[in-house]
């Protein structure tokens, strides 16, 4: 069991900055995120996009913002549980909380700060009637273990980096036979990857179907074949036991929605704008995941929310202890030894 002062659910910019403000109050933090890297959307979805409304940064790339935040919070030695979505929140008899991840990792703390942004990122599923019959029985939305596909016949759909990268990886000498299907001629993936895929197709190592999409799945219990319709030409049926529709990720609130928190329009309702406490005493919601009258979904507002929130967190953990606002310019940053 990982014990800390504040469990932060979500390692995006607001979750990360919470570590800094908590650290100034000598509170320790542990972050949990479903993504395998810190930074949330900034790192996963748009690391190369510039942000122009961070005070004192006329322009900063989202990825750089995250790198800077990681540097800024390093003295406070935060813990990380990455690649594991937080699925359960449980109140303990001693007035603390246990947050459990899907993989079963348990974290205990008197305070939970939910900085979950838009929620967890889940794969975008194609609309095909009997899709669910074959999920985990031939259809997978992530490549968890590439070895699983060794010497197999694999069909991959999509035009983004994940579809291209896996198609290339498998075609290069991993799977026996790889087909890549994409609905148009344009690819969202990196141009280098697109070129590589084209080269592999020209060399006969990758079957490429453009302007095509899978619309029918057949099989009895397990996937046997997929049928694609083409913009021009007849339908094609491809025998395969493995179809990987890799159409990117889309956010949804996810398991947090079942934690007993008051939810409105996919966001957690907070009682006030003094500390962003939720209807569960000891649980706070900050950043894009919360809502209140006048809410603005901005990183800058999330930083402010985090700063106010940790003051209340401190009082809840140490009701009788005095503390004052410290200026870093006067005192510097006193990090934790270990």
């Amino acid at each position: 069991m990982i014990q800390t002062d504040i469990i932060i659910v979500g390692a995006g910019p607001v979750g990360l900055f919470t570590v800094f403000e908590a650290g100034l109050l000598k509170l320790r933090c542990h972050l949990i995120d479903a993504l395998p890297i810190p930074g949330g959307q900034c790192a996963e979805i748009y690391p190369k996009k510039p942000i122009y409304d961070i005070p004192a940064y006329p322009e900063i790339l989202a990825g750089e913002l995250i790198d800077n935040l990681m540097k800024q919070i390093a003295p406070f030695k935060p813990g990380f549980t990455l690649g594991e979505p937080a699925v359960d929140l449980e109140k303990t008899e001693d007035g603390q909380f246990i947050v459990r991840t899907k993989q079963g990792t348990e974290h205990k703390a008197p305070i939970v700060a939910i900085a979950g942004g838009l929620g967890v990122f889940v794969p975008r599923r194609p609309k095909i009637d009997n899709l669910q019959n074959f999920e985990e029985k031939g259809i997978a939305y992530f490549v968890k273990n590439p070895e699983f596909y060794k010497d197999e016949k694999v069909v991959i759909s999509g035009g983004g980096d994940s579809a291209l990268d896996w198609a290339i990886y498998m075609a290069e000498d991993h799977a026996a036979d790889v087909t890549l299907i994409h609905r148009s001629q344009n690819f969202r993936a990196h141009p280098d990857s697109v070129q590589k895929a084209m080269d592999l197709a020209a060399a006969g190592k990758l079957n490429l179907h453009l302007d095509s999409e899978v619309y029918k799945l057949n099989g009895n219990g397990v996937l046997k074949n997929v049928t694609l319709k083409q913009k021009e030409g007849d339908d094609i049926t491809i025998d395969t036991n493995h179809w990987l529709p890799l159409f990117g990720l889309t956010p949804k609130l996810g398991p947090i929605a079942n934690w007993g928190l008051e939810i409105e329009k996919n966001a957690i309702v907070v009682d006030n704008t003094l500390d962003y406490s939720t209807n569960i005493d000891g649980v706070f919601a900050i950043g894009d995941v919360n809502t209140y009258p006048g809410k603005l979904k901005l990183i800058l507002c999330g930083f402010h929310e985090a700063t106010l929130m940790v003051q209340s967190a401190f009082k809840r953990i140490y009701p009788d202890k005095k503390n004052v606002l410290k200026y870093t310019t006067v005192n510097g940053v006193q990090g934790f030894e270990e």
Partner: protein
Amino acid sequence: MSKDINIKIVDREGEVHALTAPTDMGMNIMELCKSYELPVEGVCGGMAMCASCHCYIKSNHQLEEKSFDEQAMLDEANDVRENSRLGCQIPIADNLEGLIIELAPEQIDDSNDW
């Protein structure tokens, strides 16, 4: 002050909303829908990265060509038709007077796979 234009949005229940849209606020169709609290999520904030503002153009207006990013997103979205667009990629301007738009079905994902 430039004048407002009129845009009609058909929601997913078929109800028509006649909206007044400012042309001088740098807004797009996704933002217009949000400002009227129509059920458009706009989760990515307008970067053509989520397709939650996917809509169909029902009138004969000539819109700007789709950008590469918009087309690439539509290539991976569901329920895409010839007249599909992403609302976030359509800036509100004078030439859109009388535009009629229908919201595409929501991308419902009721699975518990996280």
